[in-house]
């Protein structure tokens, strides 16, 4: 954005280029007309409310409003960075994010590739519809079903372990099992849903390419590697960049439901922490400050990822 504005400013000073710009603006006016309604949407419903972020620098009281609440500078940020749990939370958040990226992110791609190789349309459609169902079940339901299965008291999994002559495992209240449980639940809920974008991208591939490859004697794996994957590369890149921006957004409700006294050391993240430390006690300013910190981290990572992706010859997202 910076560069564009700079170029724009430079143009104003040079009459000849300025008229060139004007000509292009007029030529593309239909495109600007198309963008305008959406642009207004973002200004009205996203940028105007963003003014509310200033309460991070205030001691906001709902009854005083933003205009009359006292200013406290960076007090809330200082509180955040000096919280006794700050580094634990940061570590937990980053670890969960990397596990998510490493173990969840590739799954929808693989599943989409598998579905894409299915030739029987009916079979494909049925499987596709089934794997996307879990997306519609709320975390409350998913967590309660998995608690029932993993319980020490009469959970199916532990009963099975006992039948096999093994020790019961305390899945729900241990530091070791929290992260695998979290990632597995995400995979279970979202993998099928995540395939949809990739399948749409694969629908755009010219079948002629596969035919040609087969004539050249390429096996199925080579076809996937050389035709399918390159065709969806740009979608993968875009989703990857957006995912990285979500680094500190790990799903409050999900984690909050899994969190307990026994796994807090590994399960506490910024959102759950803010909920107990702030929101539940009406501390809007502190919550906003923590949110702002998360957003800044996300922004830096997105900008970095976007820059890298452009370096690698991709388009990036802006």
């Amino acid at each position, binding site marked *: 954005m910076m560069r564009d504005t700079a170029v724009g400013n430079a143009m104003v000073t040079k009459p000849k280029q300025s008229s060139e710009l004007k000509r292009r603006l007029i030529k593309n006016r239909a495109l600007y007309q198309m963008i305008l309604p959406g642009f207004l949407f973002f200004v009205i419903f996203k940028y105007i409310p963003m003014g509310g972020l200033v309460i991070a620098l205030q001691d906001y*009281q709902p*009854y005083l409003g933003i205009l009359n609440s006292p200013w406290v500078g960076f007090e809330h940020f200082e509180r955040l960075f000096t919280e006794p749990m700050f580094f634990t939370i940061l570590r937990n958040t980053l670890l969960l994010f990397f596990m998510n990226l490493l173990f969840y992110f590739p799954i929808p791609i693989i599943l989409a590739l598998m579905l894409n190789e299915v030739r029987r349309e009916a079979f494909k459609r049925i499987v596709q519809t089934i794997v996307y169902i879990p997306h519609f079940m709320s975390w409350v339901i998913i967590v309660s079903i998995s608690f029932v299965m993993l319980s020490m008291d009469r959970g199916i999994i532990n009963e099975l372990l006992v039948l096999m002559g093994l020790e019961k495992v305390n899945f729900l209240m241990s530091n070791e099992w929290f992260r695998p449980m979290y990632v597995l639940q995400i995979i279970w809920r979202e993998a099928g849903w995540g395939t949809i974008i990739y399948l749409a991208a694969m629908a755009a591939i010219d079948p002629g390419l596969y035919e040609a490859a087969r004539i050249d004697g390429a096996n199925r794996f080579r076809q996937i590697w050389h035709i399918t994957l390159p065709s969806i590369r740009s979608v993968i890149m875009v989703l990857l960049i957006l995912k990285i921006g979500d680094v500190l957004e790990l799903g409050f409700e999900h984690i909050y439901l899994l969190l307990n006294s026994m796994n807090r050391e590994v399960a506490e993240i910024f959102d759950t922490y803010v909920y107990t430390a702030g929101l539940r006690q009406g501390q809007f300013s502190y919550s906003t400050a923590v949110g702002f910190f998360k957003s800044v981290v996300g922004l830096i990572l997105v900008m970095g990822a976007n820059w890298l992706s452009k370096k690698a010859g991709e388009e990036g997202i802006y």
Partner: protein
Amino acid sequence: MAKKKASALLAVFTAFAVLTGCAGNSDGSNSPAAGPNNNTQTATETPAGKKEPVKISIMANLHTPEVPDDTIEKMLEEATNTDLKIQWVPDGSYDEKMNASFATGTLPQATYIKNQTSLAMLRDAIRNDQFWEIGPLLDQYPNLKKLQKEVLANTSVDGKVYALYAERPLSRQGFIYRKDWADKLGLSAPTTTEEFFTMVEKFTTDDPDGNGKDDTIGMTDRSDFVYGAFKTVASWFGTPNNWGMQEGKLMPEFMFPQYMETLQFFKRIHSAGYMNQDFPVTSKTDQQSLLLTGKAGVYVGSMGDVAGLDQKITEVNPDALLDVHHKVSGPNSEYGTWAIPGFGSVVLFPKSAVKSEEELKNVLSFYDQLMSAELMNLITWGIEGKHYTIEDGKVIPSTDTALTDRETKPYLSLQIGGISTIDGMLEAKHILPSKAKAEELIVDNNNYLIHDPAAALDSLTYNQDGARLQEIIKDASYKFMLGNIDEAGFQAAVDQWLKQGGQKIIDEYNASYAAVK
């Protein structure tokens, strides 16, 4: 050509947008313009000579799946000559909605506050003149003035009364157990904590269901430190209720030796396998399911739960028999039970919606009428003949729970006062003996109450950090009970609590206590 088509398309969708907007407002009577701000015009004479109904807007908590049918609302309006506008808000999102409405100045004239904790959050706003003080006015109203002074004091801020309250029994705590199991094993209702321990032990080891399998446990508990088993058992051991006096100073409950004794008691039960191993993550539903399916035999908590549990357990096992009990004494051979401050929800009157004292009086006058026996019976029990019948001067509610769920139960949220403040309020006749007994024991509990001395006190640090600090103690308590840390480990957590702000909370509460005294 194409361009025309496109703009036509755009126009169509703009029209859709407008249409949906209109559709939203189509039932004119509910248009937002008729909200709180239109209430300045109060009862005026109409040509017919009858006073025009007073408009009153209310925000209340919805505890049932669906918003109620408006039959009872109509009857209330008729009886009080009001035009009620009740905004129902789902229980799970009540605080969010209330906070958003508060911050945007759109609260209705009468705003229900969910509970004590939510009320404490508003203290600062109350101090800053956001709500009407009603204390001095209450004496003008024949019914409202019967509200108990002590309970009003518990809702007060800096000694001033701002809220009307819904009465709740002070202590419903006790336990529910499988009477048939106890009889089979020759156990009587435990009267001491050691006898209680014996009961959960025998229920686990002596095959109370007689199926020859080792598949039962004694107690079932859930992940709730307060309304689950822990706090009630702590009372048996003589632990104070949140705060207690130690050498003339207010100290938090967990710094008393009785708290540690309770922790050790739970650890004994848990490590021996006499209770559900996962209790720190067990939901209320799963906790009850262990009792209902005959896996567990003791349920510590609200004795009133016996009605629901009994109905369901007979569906699973017709031979099962539940009973309730309350008095269990600890090592000091005294029985005690922790008490709530006497109120459930409260109602506040925001100045942003109630513009003048005259308007406030209109709203209070509505509540005064609502607090009459006639109307309170209406919102509690519904319509005689339809939702209940009377036998021996007591109510027998309709067995059609779907009907009462839809038509009467939600209106309970509007309750003000209760059985001890309203003469002629009907009580339920409990057909189920265990439920009838539970109600008696709840009344008997009033003789053994342990009050929270800090209920009406204030601490700035507690308001800011209290919840987070409480987590430290909660975590350490669970870890101790599960055997992850020892007494020294628990003490370390208490020290951490003190260091991170707990000491300040102690000092502030004591200062606040001294000021009130």
